[in-house]
């Protein structure tokens, strides 16, 4: 019961074909509350999945439910979604505030409430100073921000953001990241797609990883990494005498490989990282070594994704 309540987006055996090209292949997934990253390389099927979720595309097979309802031509559910499409999608002759204002009207808002909502959305995205200018004169970053403002203007329950960081500078990315986090804290569910993995990783650990139209992993990045038993985990150790430590480690059953990667660093490969983390401090103390860092080297989203795509490919 609890699981059903938490499901924001449900895909049940969904496939999408474009003629002979497969956009999405028999995907079953549940996207829960909070921020979820939809990651995958270009052409993996992210935009197809978003198009299906927004009721822009029809699934060739299977069923999609958003907030418990089918989305195709369903204003009741679509009005609860804020969507920021990828790329330059504008009526370029409008100013930023006209653009957001028109779409606020399209969401049924009017009068003072609408004006306040427009102002707030523009303010949240840091576009107050530029809202009176025509969109055709905007930089890429400004265009991205005003698209996000229109997605926020009607206070949606679910935000679907297709590559929202494209064209933004590092400061902009940081600000937008903070905005998405604060919205999620206020109870807005966010599905965010990106092919730049670290951008999404900075926002959330909940991921939907997609490649060649298939979901290759879903859930918390670290949990996903933990289930990959066929891949030994890599642990990086910065130590004053790496060669000496390597000799001691080579004698342990739980170690499958040791590689000295720098004059002061080595990489351990193990199928049981928990045991290594337990035993390593004792060994270091016993042998009198000086260690400055022990860290997982391949639990980042990038590493996990790399493993998964190599395996699925």
């Amino acid at each position, binding site marked *: 019961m609890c699981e059903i309540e938490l499901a924001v987006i449900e895909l049940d055996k969904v496939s999408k074909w474009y003629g002979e090209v497969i956009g999405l292949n028999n995907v079953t997934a549940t996207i829960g509350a909070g921020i979820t990253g939809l990651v995958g390389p270009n052409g993996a099927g992210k935009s197809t999945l978003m198009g299906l979720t927004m009721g822009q595309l029809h699934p060739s097979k299977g069923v999609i439910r958003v907030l418990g309802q089918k989305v195709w031509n369903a204003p009741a559910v679509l009005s609860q979604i804020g*969507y920021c499409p990828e790329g330059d999608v504008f009526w370029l002759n409008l100013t930023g505030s006209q653009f957001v204002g028109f779409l606020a009207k399209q969401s*049924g808002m009017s009068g003072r409430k609408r004006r306040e909502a427009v102002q707030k959305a523009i303010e949240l995205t840091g576009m107050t100073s530029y809202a009176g200018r025509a969109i055709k004169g905007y930089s890429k970053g400004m265009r991205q921000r005003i698209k996000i403002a229109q997605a926020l203007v009607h206070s949606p329950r679910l935000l679907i953001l297709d590559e929202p960081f494209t064209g933004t500078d590092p400061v902009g990315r940081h600000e937008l990241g903070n905005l998405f986090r604060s919205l999620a804290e206020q109870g807005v569910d966010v599905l965010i797609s990106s092919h730049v993995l670290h951008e999404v990783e900075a926002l959330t650990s909940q991921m939907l990883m997609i490649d060649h139209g298939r979901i290759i992993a879903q859930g918390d990045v670290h949990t996903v990494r933990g289930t990959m038993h066929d891949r030994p985990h890599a642990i990086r150790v910065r130590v004053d005498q790496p060669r000496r430590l390597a000799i001691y480690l080579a004698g342990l059953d739980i170690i499958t490989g040791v590689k000295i990667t720098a004059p002061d660093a080595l990489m351990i490969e193990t199928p049981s990282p928990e045991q290594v983390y337990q035993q390593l401090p004792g060994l270091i103390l016993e042998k009198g070594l000086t260690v400055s860092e022990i860290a997982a080297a391949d639990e980042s989203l990038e590493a996990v994704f790399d493993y998964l795509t190599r395996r699925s490919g």
Partner: protein
Amino acid sequence: MRPMIALFNFTIRQTLLNRKLWLTVLMLAAPCVLVAVVRSVAPPFDTAKELWEMYHVLAQFMLIMGLVPLICMVHGTSLIGADVENRTVVYLITRRMRRSTMLFVKFAATALVLAVLCDLAMLGLHLCAFSAVQMESLIIPSRLSDWDPAGDLRCYLLIIPLAVVGFLAIFNLIGLVSSRPLGISVGYLVVFELILSNLPVRARVYSLLHQLRVMMADAMPRVINLYELPRELREELYGQGANAVPELLAIVLGALILSAALITIRELTPTRMSRE
């Protein structure tokens, strides 16, 4: 209701700011320019018949049967297609409005703008044709003795919006069905509207130009003489005093219902449109 009003106003604004509007205005100015040229170059009219012929030929053949379909083709085929091509349709279909409602609102707004422009062109043609003309000084043949130019103008001003609505509905449907709407539309205009509608075949009742001719012949019976057809055929096709408004509106309604069904089931993506 508010989103509908907002989209209606927005569509009017976008149509007026669209570059295609300049082309539309230039095209619509052509009959006025032609009258002005004729009146300044040719010797003054001696008989009312010459003036009558010029006026009705330009109003019917140039404006209603030529420019109105062309203008509606330019605007109608991209009524939804323009938003689909630049992907802004995604903002419209993901808000509080059904796809069919979006279509009807955009259709109504565009039809209003085009109908007003075409009526203004008709008014301009009338003013150019009759300004500084002393009707009393013209020789008036007996069959034109009760000619009332203002009455004819009123007929045209009522018929033109119907023509706009009809052609816009047809070309909008073609725009939704085909990925090459302009080519198909030109084919439709030539084969169906210009050729088939003049033949004594049953299918002509589905032609807008046929219905418009019936309507004009009914409202201004003398204009039947303009149609270069054998007398019997003219009588058969247009001389029955039929009221074509219900038929024309049925064609419009059919085209709109079909368009609404299509827009409801179709994926509105540029890739989809070009694939088809």
